[in-house]
């Protein structure tokens, strides 16, 4: 199981992509996902409304219960939220509510907030061989000393762009665009 309250394994058919004694790859249940852009002031206001402050340190993630704010760039964050009940429906209403609340909180301070709940899907890669499996396609150093628990980055999975977040010593989350998922899953299943 992932070391975060946020990601839950999907319960749909085919959700288990890889199931081996030393590593599993599982599709994650849908989440509300928001792309937030703006300066530190905007981010500060957004974090207060969101319920998880937006980290200012590069490559940092701030998971708080069923919310998480991931640093993706100097003015860019990915905000994740689970609805509380694990379902297969994308929580549009939650995304809508969060958008409204954050927009209200940030007000006229320049920023951009876009719902990308449907754009991304996530895979949970877990087990003692998780890092080794990811390293078949991800060129980053995933040694815990170089990529500690909690670190998140946008990177390449061979020819697909992903967001890679280490949520535990042996657990990673891979976020990718929806149509790239079969490619990412296929390579993980072969790896």
């Amino acid at each position, binding site marked *: 199981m992932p070391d975060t309250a946020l990601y839950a394994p999907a319960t749909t058919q085919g959700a288990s992509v890889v199931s081996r004694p030393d590593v599993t790859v599982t599709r994650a249940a*849908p989440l509300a996902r928001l*792309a937030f*852009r*703006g300066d530190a002031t905007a981010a500060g206001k957004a974090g207060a409304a969101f319920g998880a402050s937006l980290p200012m340190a590069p490559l940092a993630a701030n998971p708080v219960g069923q919310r998480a704010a991931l640093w993706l760039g100097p*003015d860019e964050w990915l905000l994740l939220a689970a609805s509380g009940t694990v379902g297969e*429906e*994308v929580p*549009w209403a939650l995304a*809508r509510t969060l958008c409204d609340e954050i927009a209200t909180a940030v007000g006229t301070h*320049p*920023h*951009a*907030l*876009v*719902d*990308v*709940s*449907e*754009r*991304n899907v996530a895979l949970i890669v877990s087990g003692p061989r998780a890092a*080794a499996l990811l*390293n*078949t*396609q*991800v*060129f*980053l*150093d995933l*040694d815990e000393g*170089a990529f500690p628990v909690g670190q998140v980055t946008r990177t390449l999975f*061979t*020819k*697909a762009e992903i967001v890679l977040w280490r949520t535990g010593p042996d657990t990673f989350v891979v976020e990718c*665009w*929806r*149509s*790239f998922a*079969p*490619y990412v899953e*296929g*390579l993980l299943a*072969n*790896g």
Partner: protein
Amino acid sequence: MTQQNRTSEGGRIDRGTPVTFTFDGKRYQGFAGDTLASALLANDVHLVGRSFKYHRPRGIVTAGSEEPNALVGVARSRAKHASGEATPNLRATQVEIHDGLAAESQNRWPSLAFDIGAVNDKLSPLFVAGFYYKTFMWPKRFWNRVYEPFIRAAAGLGKAPTKPDTDTYANTYAHCDVLVAGGGPAGLAAALAAARSGARVILADEQAEFGGSLLHERGAEIDGKPAADWVTDAIGELGDNPRVTLLSRTTVFGYFNQNFLALAERVTDHLAEPDPALPRERMWQVRAKEVVLATGAIERPLVFPENDRPGVMMAEAGRIYANRYGVVPGKAIAVATACDSAWRAAFDIAEAGDTIAVIADLRAEPPAALVERAEALGIRVEPSCAVTGVIGKTRVTRVLLGRMSDTGVVPAGEVEADCLLMSGGWTPNVSLHSQARGKLDWQPHMGAFLPGDPVQAQRSAGSCRGVDGLAEVLADGARAGVAAATAAGHTGEAPVFTATGGDAGSGWWLGAVPHDRDASRVRAFVDFQNDVTAKDVKLAVREGMHSIEHIKRYTTTGMATDQGRLSNMNALSIASGALGNEIPQVGLTTFRQPYTPVTFGTLATTSRGDLFDPLRKTPIHDWAAEQGAAFEDVGLWKRAWYFPRGGEDMHDAVARECRTVRESVGLFDATTLGKIEIVGPDAAEFLNRIYTNPWTKLGVGKLRYGLMLNEAGFIMDDGVVGRLADDRFHVTTTTGGAPRVLAHMEDYLQTEWSDLNVWLTSTTEQWAVIAVQGPKAREAIAPLVDDIDLSGDAFPHMSLREGHVMGGVPCRLFRMSFTGEAGYEINVPPSRARAVWEAVWANVEKLGGCAYGTEAMHVLRAEKGYIIVGQETDGTVTPDDVGMSWAIGKKKPDFVGKRSLARPDLVAEGRKQMVGLLTKDGKTLLEEGAQVTVERSPARGTSALGHVTSSYQSPAAGRPIALAMIAGGRDRIGETLHVPMPNGGIAVEVVQPVFVDPEGSRLNA
């Protein structure tokens, strides 16, 4: 099946596990732990192949990856060999045998023993250096028909597999503090030292076992243990360290910039029945903070007449086969040498009870200790003695000796021998240092190039940098290991190893060995694999090649799979003698990756088949597939091309789809269009600058067609843009252009316009897009729309509304058209797209509509004269060229490409302009890309006025239509031009590029 050359004991093979394999169809037995070479030699098989050019019989020369002769085709079984699945050109010295393995010799026909191609050997005076350059020159017309087929047929060794590779290949990215290349004494010492200091270490060795020379260094001890036992303990210690990765059967084949190295691991080829889940080979792409090169030294052949005969081997190879594999490669063995190490091979073999016929040393006074020991073993010793040739064609039978004196060489008799071990000394293996761009230093007293100062974070250790003697090599490795770990941020002390045995030696020889034979009749080989002789090198010099780079290309010396690791120094020495220049002045060719040949599978790794590229499918894809749609590739996407019904061909299906859209309603999957949400207080200003059109006054809820230029003023993309709020736009791009457009926008935003408060977010995959087009489009969607007034007044053409469909599914509804019919594009979340699509489909079917694909879409838009970027445009087309000056905001102070649009050549008369073409006969369909000319049959060399960009059978027009880019086209409307084709010119009339509803009244229906 006899293994007559196998010793009664000793070696590292597993005598309890016999292994049966075939070579050229004949069954042989070896033992687990044998290489194909050692197992063949155990069966007294030396003849294993025919040479490249002269088809001379050739035998096994070495025991390592530098093997020039024993190249074989190998398959896991004879059946696989027969079915064309063998891997060609593997070195028998590296192939580990397993039960069932099937190997075949190469470059011979009909058989290895009797080879027709051997006639080349008799014709060898014709095939001198530069033969190809001299022969295949003229007449010119012979090139395609005669010379090239001949060269192709003669080129290369081995047969390429005829079937797709059924094996899988893997990839791993890895990082480490210290990568050690080579697992001999220096590499092991370096790895131990680095690992003990806490560094992350990768140790790679190309052989099946770590240990290198320690595996055959009989009598040597380290820290009081036999050398091989010390290796076992060292590997045990490294294996227990979680920070160490041990990679045997792994060749470091490429050393790239920033200490990026590529390794090829052979995972399953040595197994009879591998786990099918395992890959055949694995590529390791390693980023190392520091690298230790411990790649050893390679023994150098002696260049004497007939030195290529089967049975002539490197002395150290003979020692390796005897000590490590328990194989003595002959019954009577002669040794020809210029250095001490070959004497040790002779001693080891003699002590094992086999016969050494003679040791012939080129030196007048070999070390006394060696001579004494030889005499004690009863070995005949001949100092100042050269081997001047061998007798025997497919196997050595006798060895000719010559006495060296001040006046030359005089015959000194013959010796019966079926194997000759030779050694001209040792060449430090500097390939990887050289790949890492390190220079080499010539050491005249050693007759060797040694690694100079490294350019990258690497250091050489042990005999690859000329260190000799086991104790010295271990100390050098330990020092290098600690230095590398320290440079990578760790601290430690170099471990001290005490070693006895493996003493340093002396003596070396470079170049051709003098002889008393008729120089015009004998050949002494420098490069065995490429059949280059000492005479060839001298001839190349005589013909004007003075740089080794030229000599190499003229003679092909050093261009074999070992990149000249065996041959280069001898070739250099011969060239330098012929030129009268010192060796460093002649130069040294550059070692390049790969170190040894790498399979294409390993280079491709997992990027093959359906996983070569991401294969992107829309949420509607499966529905379309179920309906029997044909698909086409657009970028990485699969798009439904057309939907054939009952026996329809493409033409019929597309015609029906087009008619249906114009008559009732069609349903189209437009999900793949790129989408970007542009948000921020300066969003409109950003669009003003990036598009040609004006955006400030576009109202919320309105759509506008946008045209985007590059800096040169040429069209790069287009799409419809909707305003969702004052500070928020929904931008669409072409399917193929989406990544390029986003990158273009980000580029400007980040580098030129950092003053703007606006941000870009790709929403391509946030929305699936269902296009509903045709006079009954509104009827088709109305029952599904929850909360949007669809009436023409409330929701006119080029508007957008946010709302819901099907009881709560969020949607962005666009009223727009790419067909000329009234239509909508329903943007819905992909997770619900199929459900919405099927609901719309149910209504469309009831209304007599259909689903249509990209081909019908292309026809429908061409009927309206709407351009497709990349079809009408080709990167040299301005808005005016395609009649779209209306899309340019004339009052805007600037936009990307504006300044270029005023360039003289972009405003000149006579530019190609988009027009329509109608064939005069009303029937002929023009070919896209066909040239358009004034005359029906223009004279050769006449420039075309332009070309056909789009051509379709138009159901609406009831005839073929075409769009074309024609010089001064708009002024030619009404003229008759021609499209010259092989069967004669086709007369066409130039017309306005709109074939249906020029007033656009249908859009607002």
